[in-house]
């Protein structure tokens, strides 16, 4: 896949540290429309922290973020949402005491002309989107704490795709899912990609990476090991990047 023109997102030279630990150390990655970029690396490599700088959860200590070639300030989650960036967090970030609809619309509630939250419309919309993502989903009127891991993940995914994102960040979206649900997420990713979204996908299963991603950026100890075109390398090449922290010679 030839990426020409301006990238949808560029994270340039991003650094952030927590109390002396450089969680992300001068990392540069980019993402084009209709592209899936895998972010790989061991636990603690800094993947989640990196994407949190884009989603507004953290403010980077250094570096800059460009959207469609223009420098933007993302200092909180609202800024990110305003840039059509949606995120599925590794922790899912659901309010356990609220039901699926309240979580899906949290911070963006549909309100009536009188300014009151329109719960029934929100529930109807939630039923619609979840029917597409997870036809077995039934528990609309219970707090999400009463849902299974897979159902909770469905709610988090529904929230990210409902609001017409242009940039989607998925931090281990299939971690709690069974094989069948994982397959549905894979299909969803391909569908969204075909619609022209750019997707950052943090994923541990190398087969999914090979199947779903166009490029893969590997991180180790907060630093970028390198970025490769997935169709130019083997899964062993990527695994060795993750483990050894070195780019394979032929793809360099």
């Amino acid at each position: 896949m030839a990426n020409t023109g301006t990238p949808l997102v560029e994270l340039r030279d991003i650094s952030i540290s927590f109390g002396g630990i450089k969680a992300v150390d001068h990392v540069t990655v980019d993402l084009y429309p209709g592209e899936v970029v895998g972010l790989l690396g061991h636990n603690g490599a800094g993947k989640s922290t990196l994407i949190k700088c884009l989603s507004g959860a953290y403010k980077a200590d250094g570096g800059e973020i460009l959207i469609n070639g223009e420098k933007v300030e993302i200092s909180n989650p609202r800024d990110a949402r305003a840039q059509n960036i949606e995120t599925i967090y590794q922790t899912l970030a659901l309010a356990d005491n609220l039901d699926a609809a309240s979580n899906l619309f949290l911070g963006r509630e549909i309100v009536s002309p009188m300014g009151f939250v329109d719960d029934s419309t929100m529930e109807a919309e939630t039923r619609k989107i979840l029917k597409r993502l997870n036809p077995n989903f039934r528990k609309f009127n219970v707090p999400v704490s009463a849902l299974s891991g897979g159902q909770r993940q469905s709610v988090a995914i529904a929230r990210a795709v409902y609001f017409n994102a242009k940039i989607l960040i998925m931090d281990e979206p299939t971690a709690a899912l069974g094989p069948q649900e994982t397959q549905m997420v894979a299909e969803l990713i391909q569908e969204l990609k075909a619609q022209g979204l750019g997707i950052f996908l943090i994923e541990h299963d190398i087969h999914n990476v090979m199947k779903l991603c166009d490029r893969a950026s590997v991180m180790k100890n907060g630093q970028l090991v390198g970025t490769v075109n997935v169709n130019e390398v083997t899964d062993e090449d990527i695994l060795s990047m993750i483990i050894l922290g070195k780019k394979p010679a032929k793809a360099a």
Partner: protein
Amino acid sequence: MTDTNSPTPSASAMPDAQPGAITRFLHATEIDTRLLGMVGALLLIWVGFHLYPAISSVMRGGAFDLGLGNFLTPRNLWNLSVQTSYIGIMATGMVLVIIIRCIDLSVGSIIGVTGMIMGLLQAEYLPPLLGLGHPAIWIITAIVGLVVGVMIGAFHGWLIAYRGIPSFIVTLGGLLIWRGMAFLSASGRTIAPMDEKFALLGGGPYGTVGAVGSWIVGGLACLGLIYLLISGRSQRRKHDFPQRPVWAEVFLGAVGCGVILCAVLLVNAYPWAKGIVAQYAERTGQTLPEGTFISHGFAIPVLLLIGVGIAMTILMTRTRFGRYVFAIGGNPEAAVLAGINTRWVTLKVVSLMGALAGLAAIIVSARQNSATNAMGELDELYVIAAAVIGGTSLAGGSGTVYGAILGALVILSLQSGMVLIGFGDGSYQKIVVGTALVLAVYLDILYRKKVK
């Protein structure tokens, strides 16, 4: 799809056991079982206190005489409603505070200091400026009380939300500081009497809306309830959601209206005392025959409680703000990631608590027709206990306004009941309320385990 027999989503949340008649009934009416439990406990307490004199007379070898009971009388229940009002008003705010995982220990002291400020204002500062008994005095005083309450709350909220000091510490400090200020404001003097109009807010014999007013209030409440049921039903139909069976809707409407009308009959069954009737006749220049029956009707503080309860319920269940309060309690981090300004919400919640403490101060000082620096002492504990007995979880994230009001009613019932059966000494009351608090929370824990 509007088939009333189709399984509703919550069906799967019901216990696995064979759905018996009661389970099906609760399911169809969607009555909160915890609410039912609380109402049951309340009735038990009421009946218990009412029967106590008769039972104790039997124990002493006397006859079983129901006429000895003095709890379930219009007079006592009316008094109970007034006593409950200001604790209930504050408890509705404490629910929000506890939901966002904070606590407010300072509300009793806020009553003290705002009460003193209002007392001085209406008794010593405003009359020389405006003239004694000027109609604006009570309005200015009440507004100042509310504003001072909000400002104290906002200051606490700012320290908690923007300076990161735990709410326990901020409000523990507030408890001491504002009580000290209350004393210093008038060097410990008692300020009395209050402005005549202001005193009506406390709900003395004149601070009531009378029989006709009470019927109007009751009628409006019934209409409101019926409107809610009908509009809820049409909302569900619009979106093809499962609906309650019609009989369940009718049942809820009938029970609700029944309770409202009983309350009206009750407050109207409590007449003014002879002296008050005579005084009223003299004032209005009428000649009223001996034994004229003039109903109290709802007391103004009770109407204030009802108004606050409705407003707070709407706030919590129908507005974004309420949604954010719950979200912060459920998962503060998720709330931030959803773009909610959690600090600002926290500040607003604590400010609101301050405003409600200000309102409570109005009622307390109006009711005792004086302002003292000890006003509201220990009230913070009763307010917190009311919220917790009403099902508010101290872990945050859950609680209801109606629960807190019922909780307040439970506590005040215990207190006034103890007085009626001759254990008026404060120490017995404290023991009983303390026991009830621990017991209520324990039962709640058992209940939650069972529901899971």
